[in-house]
């Protein structure tokens, strides 16, 4: 099991943002962190990877402490054995596709692992190519293969599909799901794409302005019947609509007619997600 409890004050564009995220995750699960850009998703993932240090909190992965503010433990990224897929692929331009994978191979591990991954990710024709000659989708496949060379305990995906076209996206999603199961990984995906998180994840956490505003199984997440209504504040209204603020987002919803309730600006309201459309 992975236990995470992280707090950090981040410098966001609109000023300081308090990131405060804590949850537990079972091994072998596929978790999606969902939310719009600027919600703190990437910062959270970087803290998990050891690329960014939290102000307080702890990270415990399979009984091993990666980070504990009080005990002054902070494992470097090198010591955490993670696979990390960056938004910009970050393949090493000076090495071939195969060279990128070989670079990732830990000392004393057989090269067989590389050829297996090349087969799984269907990179055979590209092995001697330099990354800059590849398409975005191909680069991301190489990056995924490279992230798996170490046999990581945890696979972290930072919006890995945001820069590839629609068709390629679906293919890559299948690749990722495939390796998630085949390599028995615990995977955390960051995305702002509703369809993507629904397709990929077992569980979805909705992050907004650094806080968890919803945490549900993927099957229930967008299902209003099973999910709890969300509390919002009325910020404006006219004859036919209400504008409701939920966390940092504003939603426009139709007024129920004839309405028996006397709506007022500033009063709280409970909403089902299905009926709301983003303003």
């Amino acid at each position, binding site marked *: 099991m992975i236990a995470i409890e992280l707090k950090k004050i981040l410098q966001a564009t609109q000023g300081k943002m308090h990131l405060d995220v804590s949850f537990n995750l079972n091994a072998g699960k596929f978790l999606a962190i969902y939310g719009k850009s600027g919600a703190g998703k990437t910062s959270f993932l970087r803290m998990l990877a050891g*690329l960014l240090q939290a102000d307080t909190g702890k990270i415990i992965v399979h009984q091993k402490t990666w980070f504990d503010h009080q005990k002054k433990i902070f494992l470097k*990224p*090198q010591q955490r054995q*993670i696979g*990390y897929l960056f938004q910009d692929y970050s393949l*090493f*331009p*000076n090495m071939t596709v195969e060279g990128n994978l070989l*670079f*990732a191979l830990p000392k004393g591990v057989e090269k067989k692992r590389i050829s297996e991954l090349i087969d799984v990710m269907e990179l055979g024709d590209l092995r001697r190519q330099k990354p800059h000659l590849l398409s975005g989708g191909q680069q991301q496949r190489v990056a995924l293969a490279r992230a798996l060379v170490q046999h990581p305990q945890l696979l972290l995906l930072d919006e890995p599909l945001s820069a590839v076209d629609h068709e390629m996206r679906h293919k890559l999603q299948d690749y990722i799901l495939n390796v998630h199961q085949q390599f028995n990984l615990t995977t955390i995906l960051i995305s702002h794409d509703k369809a993507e998180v629904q397709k990929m994840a077992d569980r979805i956490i909705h992050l907004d302005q650094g806080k968890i505003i919803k945490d549900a199984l993927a099957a229930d997440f967008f299902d209003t019947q099973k999910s709890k209504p969300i509390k919002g504040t009325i910020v404006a209204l006219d004859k036919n609509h209400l504008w409701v603020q939920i966390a940092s987002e504003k939603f426009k919803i139709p007024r129920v007619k004839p309405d028996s309730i006397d709506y007022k600006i500033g009063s709280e309201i409970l909403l089902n997600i299905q009926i709301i459309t983003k303003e």
Partner: protein
Amino acid sequence: MGNTIFESFIDMIDWQPLTLTFQLALTTTILLFLIGIPIAYWLAYTKFKIKPIIEAIISLPLVLPPTVLGFYLLLAFSPNNSFGAWLDQYLGLRLVFSYEGLVLGSMLYSLPFMVHPIQAGLANLSPSLREASYVLGKSEWTTLLRVLLPNIRPALITGIVLSFAHTIGEFGLVLMIGGSIQGETKVASIAIYEQVESLNYAVANSYSFILFALSFFILLLVYLYNGSYTKHIIK
């Protein structure tokens, strides 16, 4: 006929200042390359507050008259002063009016020309390259040698060539701390000055022309190489 002119040209000039110049430039560049990389690496990634102070010190030779740097080095290296005396006594090193002193002076003088391109090259690399390497379990050292440096090759070449060319071109500093000792500290730029002073314009011209042509071709090669490298990456 053409042959004899060429031969007389060869005989006419003393080659020692030229070979000394290139020897000095080569030594300086190799040493600067070795110390320039760690300095540039530190400057590119550090979050220390003293970074601007270090940057300002390294950049001083860009704006100071070389004679100012030479003057202070002359004072520091002089065996009459404590630092120079210490060097002399414990390391047996005499840095004024010696080739070793010249190398050290040249290194200080050309330091920004090595550090700046490498620092800029590192800073312009996507940070995720370095991070990707760390996440793959690689140390900072392995990352530097196998990921960072190979991907800033044009910056490394620029640093090497500029340092080399700048050392060839130094004058004021060499004159201050080196004097003009034949075979020890008399480099081409000083030889030219002396030849002009004694009205030997023909010899001065030979030295000058060789330096001029060589410098031009070195720089031309760099721009050709960096141009084709950039194109290759963009494609």
